[in-house]
């Protein structure tokens, strides 16, 4: 092995490192290590002058290996690799020693911190001389995106990607797109009609030349990697051809089977053959196979007769799957309202005048079961009580988080009650009012001014006294328990991840944060990325959020998803696992250990002969190292982390300096 020419660069990180590690000692120590030609220190190595120092030394001293002694490689490894690349050096001949997090920040004693820094520096110098230059590779990208979930998040993301010129599949599990936003009556704080601002975007989805809408469909399998995903989509039978159906509705008049109207939160009924709501996209009817007399019992077929001329109905339609190639994907699987049955003391399910916020939305909506009239059992409620934080900020149901929208939607609900029932007594029980968004505090003030009684404290139980419900809570400002009578109790239920999101997350290898929502790449700096390259997050699947934040995040996710499509190529992992076929026993342990299906056993040429050995698909490999850890013969090694390199590092750390 030709002797290496190593440059060592020690960073002060302002005072972060320098105040607790003796930089001059460290530099003198580095200069004495074998192979080290240059040892320098600087205030901020990551700054442009710091990088220039490295580039200059590479040129002047013909350095071929660089050690940066600074912070965690997580942030600045790419910085220094780029500096090396621009100076004509292979960027993988870099090693970083983290003396900030591992020395300066965690040890109070400068002697201890400096001694440990020396060990880490020596180990890095040892390892860097054993590193091999690696080649970066690129693969072409399928210039198509897929968005999963057709609520406002998915709609916005799909439109943004499509507008930038890329083909986009929008997959929605229900018969229509629109999601929960479509169910809302008004939106806070501006009181825009929710459907009025959403339906134009839904129509855009339908008419956009770059968007292919796959409604009533579910993603069942995902293979591949960023730029080259293969997605299997199950298309559920609608029994009505959405391309032929003109939504005339004649057929539904003949369908005698009633089911719960889930769009109206179960408050009304519709037929087994139905259109989910008047503005549905696709604008086509659908048959619920769990309710339809023909699909269940094999008789009826009335609807087919009605639609004889158009012939849109096909009761023999079968479920089928299609496979699609896409380059990037956006998860927009949304939320599910908290199930209020899980707080039995609040009377939901026991008293019919205890309802959830979503049910309230449908009741007051002009397109709802009461045509917008606020009636409970046919009567106008005189006293209305709202209870906040139902299923949010509540460890007993496993939801420690704040759902972020309930304070404001409750303020909106109170406003709507006042608008419809000027004489009603309105009480809101709350723990804290979180009016954090633009115009929210102003809206909260406005609602309070509409004679809405905000009582600081929450309701513990709801029970009946005569023909009234009693909400028993404490006004903690008074320090007194209160019994507030009500004709209507509205529970401000929180938001939980969509139930189907869990399996989908497993297919895409997405992590979840402790709250159960999908985990973003970094809470500050990678808010829409995920741990899976090429998969992005939009809307409530990442955490509860209101419509403005959802739309903003959807736009951000779309922009991120467009980057690989626009570039046309993606870089693959460089520090991949490699197999020395002559040492491989073909035991297959590595095949089982690989979480990315990147390894298979195959026939390999060894000189003139062939043998069975592990073969790594370098495009799929994520350099996790699981394979080399289980390999008994040492045949499979991860580039940049080979057994030889790691053993040398351990040896160097074990020495006294």
């Amino acid at each position, binding site marked *: 092995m030709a002797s290496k020419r190593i440059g060592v660069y020690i960073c002060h990180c302002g005072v972060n490192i320098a105040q607790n590690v003796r930089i001059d000692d460290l530099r003198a120590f580095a200069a004495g290590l074998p192979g080290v030609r240059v040892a320098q220190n600087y205030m901020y190595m990551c700054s442009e002058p710091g990088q220039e120092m490295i580039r200059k030394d590479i040129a002047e001293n013909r350095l071929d290996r660089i050690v940066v002694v600074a912070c965690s490689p997580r942030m600045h490894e790419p910085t220094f690799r780029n500096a090396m690349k621009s100076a004509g050096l292979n960027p993988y001949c870099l090693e970083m020693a983290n003396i900030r997090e591992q020395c300066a920040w965690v040890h109070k004693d400068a002697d201890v911190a400096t001694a440990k820094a020396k060990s880490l520096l020596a180990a890095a110098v040892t390892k860097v001389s054993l590193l091999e230059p690696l080649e970066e590779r690129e693969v072409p990208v399928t210039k198509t995106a897929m968005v999963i979930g057709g609520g406002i998040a998915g709609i916005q993301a799909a439109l943004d990607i499509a507008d930038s010129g890329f083909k986009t599949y929008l997959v929605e599990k229900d018969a229509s797109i629109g999601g929960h936003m479509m169910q809302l009556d008004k939106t806070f704080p501006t009181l825009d009609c929710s459907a009025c601002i959403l339906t134009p975007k839904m129509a855009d989805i339908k008419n956009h030349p770059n968007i292919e809408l796959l409604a009533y469909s579910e993603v069942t399998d995902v293979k591949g990697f960023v730029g080259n995903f293969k997605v299997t989509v199950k298309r559920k039978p609608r029994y009505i051809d959405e391309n032929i159906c003109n939504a005339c509705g004649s057929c539904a008049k003949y369908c005698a089977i009633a089911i719960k109207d889930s769009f109206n939160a179960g408050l009304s009924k519709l037929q087994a053959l139905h259109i989910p709501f008047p503005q549905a996209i696709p604008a086509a009817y659908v048959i619920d196979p769990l309710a339809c007399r023909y699909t269940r019992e094999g008789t009826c077929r009335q609807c087919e007769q009605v639609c004889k001329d158009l012939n849109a109905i096909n009761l023999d339609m079968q479920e089928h799957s299609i496979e699609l190639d896409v380059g990037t994907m956006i998860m927009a699987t949304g939320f599910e309202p908290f199930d209020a049955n899980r707080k039995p003391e609040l009377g939901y399910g026991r008293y019919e005048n205890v309802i959830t916020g979503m049910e309230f939305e449908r009741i007051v909506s002009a397109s709802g079961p009461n045509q917008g009239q606020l009636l409970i059992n046919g009567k106008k409620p005189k006293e209305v009580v709202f209870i906040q934080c139902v299923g949010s900020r509540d*460890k007993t149901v496993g939801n420690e988080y704040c759902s972020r929208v309930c304070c404001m939607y409750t303020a909106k609900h109170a406003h709507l009650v006042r608008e419809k029932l000027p004489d009603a007594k309105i009480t809101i029980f709350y723990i804290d009012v979180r009016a954090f968004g633009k115009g929210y505090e102003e809206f909260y003030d406005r609602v309070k001014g509409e004679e809405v009684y905000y009582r600081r404290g929450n309701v513990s*139980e709801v*029970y009946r006294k005569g023909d009234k419900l009693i909400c028993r809570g404490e006004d*903690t400002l008074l*320090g007194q328990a209160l019994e507030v009578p009500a004709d209507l109790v509205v529970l401000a239920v929180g938001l939980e991840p969509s139930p189907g999101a869990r399996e989908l997350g497993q297919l895409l290898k997405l992590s979840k944060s402790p709250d159960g929502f999908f985990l973003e790449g970094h809470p500050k700096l990678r808010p829409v990325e995920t741990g899976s390259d090429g998969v992005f997050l939009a809307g409530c699947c990442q955490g509860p959020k209101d419509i403005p934040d959802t739309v903003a995040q959807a736009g951000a996710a779309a922009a991120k998803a467009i980057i690989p499509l626009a570039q046309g190529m993606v870089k693959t992992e460089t520090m991949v696992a490699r197999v020395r076929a002559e040492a491989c026993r073909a035991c297959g342990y590595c095949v089982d250990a690989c979480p990315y299906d990147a390894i298979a056993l195959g026939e390999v040429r060894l000189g003139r002969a062939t043998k069975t050995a592990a073969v790594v698909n370098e495009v799929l490999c994520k350099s996790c190292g699981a394979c080399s850890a289980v390999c008994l013969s040492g045949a499979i090694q991860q580039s940049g982390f080979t057994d030889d390199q790691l053993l040398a590092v351990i040896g160097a750390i074990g020495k006294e300096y």
Partner: protein
Amino acid sequence: MQDAYERCVYLERLGLFGCVQCGKCTAGCPINYVTTQEEPFNIRRLVYDVLNAPGEELASEKHFLWQCTTCGTCSLRCPKDIKPRDVVMNLRSILVEDGTLPPAIRDVLKSISINYNPWSLGKEKRAEWYKGLELKDASEAELCLYVGCTPAFDSRLQKLARSAVAILQKLGIDFGIFGTEEICCGNEIRRLGDTWSFDALREANTELFNGCENIRQVMTLSPHCWNTFRNEYPGLKAEVLHYSIFLARQLASGALKPAKEFAKRVVYHDPCFLGKQNEIYDEPRALLKSIPGIDFVEFDRNRENSLCCEGGGGRMWIEIEHAPERLANIRVRDAVEMGADVIAVACPFCLLTLEDAVKAMDLEGKVQVMDILEIINTTI
């Protein structure tokens, strides 16, 4: 006076730093319900006070600490998983340690250390309830019938114990009792704050039960005894069951078949130590509903919303002064309004408090309080 560190550990152990002062504990508290606006029992305020003042001084100022029935509603309702009830028990412990106790409580704790029961009665008196019955010793049977102190000594409750015996005999179950050797489970003692006596009782009981190799199961009459055996006796080898669970299993297997009619309207009152604290709601109902001819009805406030009878947490020995109303009275009034003939209970304390209320309200002959054991016994 605790030093700052000790105080921090104390508050953290009770989880009080997480309190958001939402008031659900106070609003759900049945004792807040029956104390006056001038002298309220406000558990939320107590938590706040404990957060802001050292325990010893505070405990001695709070005379209302003895009003709590330890029903656990506050802990059940708390969204932050704090146990306000444990704060009360903790402060009571401070008072027990100081010896500043109401006389009635002092008598109970004294009796425990002398007689191993809270009723200031000699242990030979435990033999009264099974006079004339030929019963095996617990060490000779697989099932131990643990009667508990109050049913052993109280003449009304002795009927309960004898009903249990009759049912087990009719079912042909091999069971035994400890007789005069039985000692207090300590559930109420712990809730009165005397953790030292409780530890002694736990040790003695654990030795007694574990010393009998034959015992596989223990059946208790009171949910209070069951609660402590189940949740606070980590070393117990036998499975301990409240009778409602034991009999519901017999019902499910077909061994227990109520055949005779009980043609009455029956409303079931959930005991806090069975329902709210241990989530047993369905078993007692299954037993009642299995009885032919029964007209089973529910209180509006049932299951998780049930109202405490004020019998627990040491309240058998302490009355609230100047209470505008008793919870048991509310319960009885609701039952009469519903046209119930019988209020069914599954707890000796509930039976006593509700029966007292019936007498105090002059409703004898109008409504009757019965334990499920007594009802079942008349139907098989």
